[in-house]
């Protein structure tokens, strides 16, 4: 057993941190709230760094790495609130790779940007494959692939949909089986949706008789794995944001004085920051679990990834509120970074089933195994 990062993993992480440090992503996150054009296009950075092909096998032109390496990159993106379209791209790329789709080399290269139109696998309360509704608490059916090969349906709040070149859509076939269908951007209608966190590219995606290519060899287990991969990536991204929130808050707590003492010497502040650390440590441990399960314990991957997502969502919620609170009034102002982390927390925890569904899945997996 060795849970330290390997040299390659450390290198990947450090290189990501370095590459992302060249762009003022946090400042851009603020500007983009008022001017979407202020958001830098980080896809070229992702291409150059080889992130696009991270999960594509070497045979298909990728780096052949695993989920944990992808999480390391996501954490670095989260650390600086960088809006890179990896949450949509990476799970899609792994499905295209599994199916040996003709586009996979271009996707691995980053010449084509892929978007995963995810569906939540059935559980013991909800027996269908479901996707995000535009509004409200009732999830809706995944798109349907008719027997003539055309795709119909609508999926709301799809991460990284705007501007994607190829969509990998989880659908149900005419006979009710879950399938993956690759659809070119031309056949997809994408309505851009910006909510609260301008760095998060979202779209409502509609298929109205779109022609799709059925991905062969990709069935329920692979589709579930892709869903939980997305959960892990979102968790990792949140972890990175937690780490920044903690570091910035700790620094401020050392230098800000009140009643003659640095505020970090007060238990209320100190214990709250240690609570952020506790949630951070828990989340990191669960990401290790998810990374390990992805490779070596496929039966536990749903549990591990859901637990990581649940932990990360809670951690970022707490950390971003603590960041505001430790900074006193100034932490709630537009010019401060804390609100940007708060925005990230609020929107992220409601995407892809939300933290609530992830927590329920943890219970569901454990209850089913009991």
């Amino acid at each position, binding site marked *: 057993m060795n849970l330290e990062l390997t040299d390659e993993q450390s290198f990947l992480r450090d290189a990501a941190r370095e590459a992302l440090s060249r762009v003022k992503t946090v400042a851009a996150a603020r500007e983009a709230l008022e001017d979407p054009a202020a958001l830098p296009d980080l896809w070229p950075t992702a291409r150059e760094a080889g992130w696009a092909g991270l999960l594509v096998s070497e045979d298909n032109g990728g780096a052949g790495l695993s989920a944990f390496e992808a999480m390391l990159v996501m954490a670095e993106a989260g650390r600086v609130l960088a809006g890179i379209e990896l949450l949509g791209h990476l799970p899609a790329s792994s499905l295209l790779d599994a199916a040996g789709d003709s586009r996979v080399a271009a996707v691995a290269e980053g010449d084509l940007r892929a978007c995963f139109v995810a569906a939540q696998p059935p559980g013991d309360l909800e027996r269908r494959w479901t996707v995000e509704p535009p509004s409200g608490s009732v999830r809706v059916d995944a798109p349907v692939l008719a027997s003539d090969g055309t795709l119909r349906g609508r999926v709301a709040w799809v991460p990284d949909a705007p501007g994607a070149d190829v969509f990998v859509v989880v659908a149900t076939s005419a006979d009710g089986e879950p399938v993956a269908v690759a659809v070119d951007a031309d056949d997809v209608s994408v309505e851009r*949706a910006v909510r609260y966190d301008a760095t998060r590219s979202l779209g409502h995606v509609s298929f109205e008789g779109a022609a799709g290519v059925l991905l062969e060899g990709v069935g329920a287990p692979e589709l579930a794995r892709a869903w939980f991969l997305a959960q892990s990536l979102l968790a990792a991204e949140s972890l990175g944001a937690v780490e920044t929130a903690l570091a910035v808050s700790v620094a401020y707590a050392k230098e800000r004085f*009140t009643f*003659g003492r640095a505020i970090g010497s007060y238990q209320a502040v100190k214990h709250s920051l240690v609570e952020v650390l506790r949630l951070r440590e828990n989340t990191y441990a669960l990401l290790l679990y998810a990374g390990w399960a992805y490779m070596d314990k496929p039966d536990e991957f749903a549990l591990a990834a859901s637990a990581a997502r649940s932990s990360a969502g809670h951690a970022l919620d707490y950390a971003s509120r603590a960041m505001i609170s430790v900074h006193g009034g100034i932490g709630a*102002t537009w010019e401060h970074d804390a609100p940007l982390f708060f*925005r990230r927390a609020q929107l992220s925890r409601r995407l892809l089933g939300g933290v609530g569904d992830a927590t329920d899945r943890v219970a569901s997996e454990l209850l089913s195994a009991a």
Partner: protein
Amino acid sequence: MDLNDTPEQVHYRAKVRAWLHEHKDEAPAAQGEDDAAYVQARRAWQGKLATAGLAGVTWPVELGGQGLGPIEHVIVGQEIVRAGVPDILDVIGVGMLGPTIIAHGSAEQKNRYLGPMLHGDEVWCQLFSEPAAGSDLAAVQARAVLQDDGSWRLSGQKVWTTNAHFAAHGLLLARTDADVPKHKGLTMFIVPMDAAGITIRGLRQISGEAEFNEVFFDDVRLDADAVVGGVGNGWGTALTTLMFERLTIGLGSESLGYQAERYAAAIATDEHARLDPEVRRRLGELCVQLLAVKFTGYRMLSALQQGQIPGPEAGLAKVTTVRAAIDAGDLIADVLGPDALDAESEWAYMISFLPGLKSAGGTEEILRNTIGERVLGLPPEPRLDKGIPFSELRAKERAGVAAT
């Protein structure tokens, strides 16, 4: 124990309701753009309310008020909410700063300022907090220096100032002696907001709106008669304002809009969520808190009516309200999804606003210290700033930062 109106209160309520019914068409919208025309309309409406006796209900009659009790004040507030019209514009002036001038001001100050304040002719702002003096208010650094002619020269910065951009006057806490311990070298001033050397800048919050202002003072001249309550007595004067602040927040809680019914209505629109036990548990828990705050408010009102002054534990109601409203925002966004976070949504504004409210106005942590010490009688934190001249204290803090 009786929560119902007395016959006199029934009569008073009816009178208030009748007036509001008759005049509600003259009122501007309850929410409006933050522009000059809207402010003007709100000021005019305040004037009408004041003339009708619906502003300054608890102010003494000889100073233009009604000389009535806190219950009548609340009755007016309830009827204003019920009529769907806006309350007075200058809640801070009439609720907190006016009473401070009534308690500590000179006869000339009362004559000059209270009438125009009550009628909305002159709006006021409160210039207490600074970037480095929030919960530790006695640490203010804005400096007023006495001149040979008896006037003062003021320099420094204030922050979190509501209404500064259209206020005529401000009540300002400044340091006039840095060589004595920090609570002792403070003086309260009335500042004309159009004086030379004042710069006002809107301070945007998470939501993007400028709820507050920063106000900068660059060698601003204040007349000798600007002093309220005596030179060096600023801390005592400020405590009066803070006491009225607590009162205003406590009595005004119903109009904050953080009500159990409102959140339940939002959840009730979702047929699936309203039957979900997990949603209901969360809704139930936060509504329990808000119902408790509502009746805590009545308790406070009842105590006030008996002549008691509410203690610091009254601040717990705000803690409870903010927490419960945060939980409500969370729950509603979980149920409604990302659209609840849309810039146009009423919930996005609340979700953005509350984290700041939690830190503002004396943080929850300081409040808990105060209540623990003054209400429960627990021993104080070790204080490292006691009896030390303010100037030395600042030097020590700077040394502390450099050492870490």
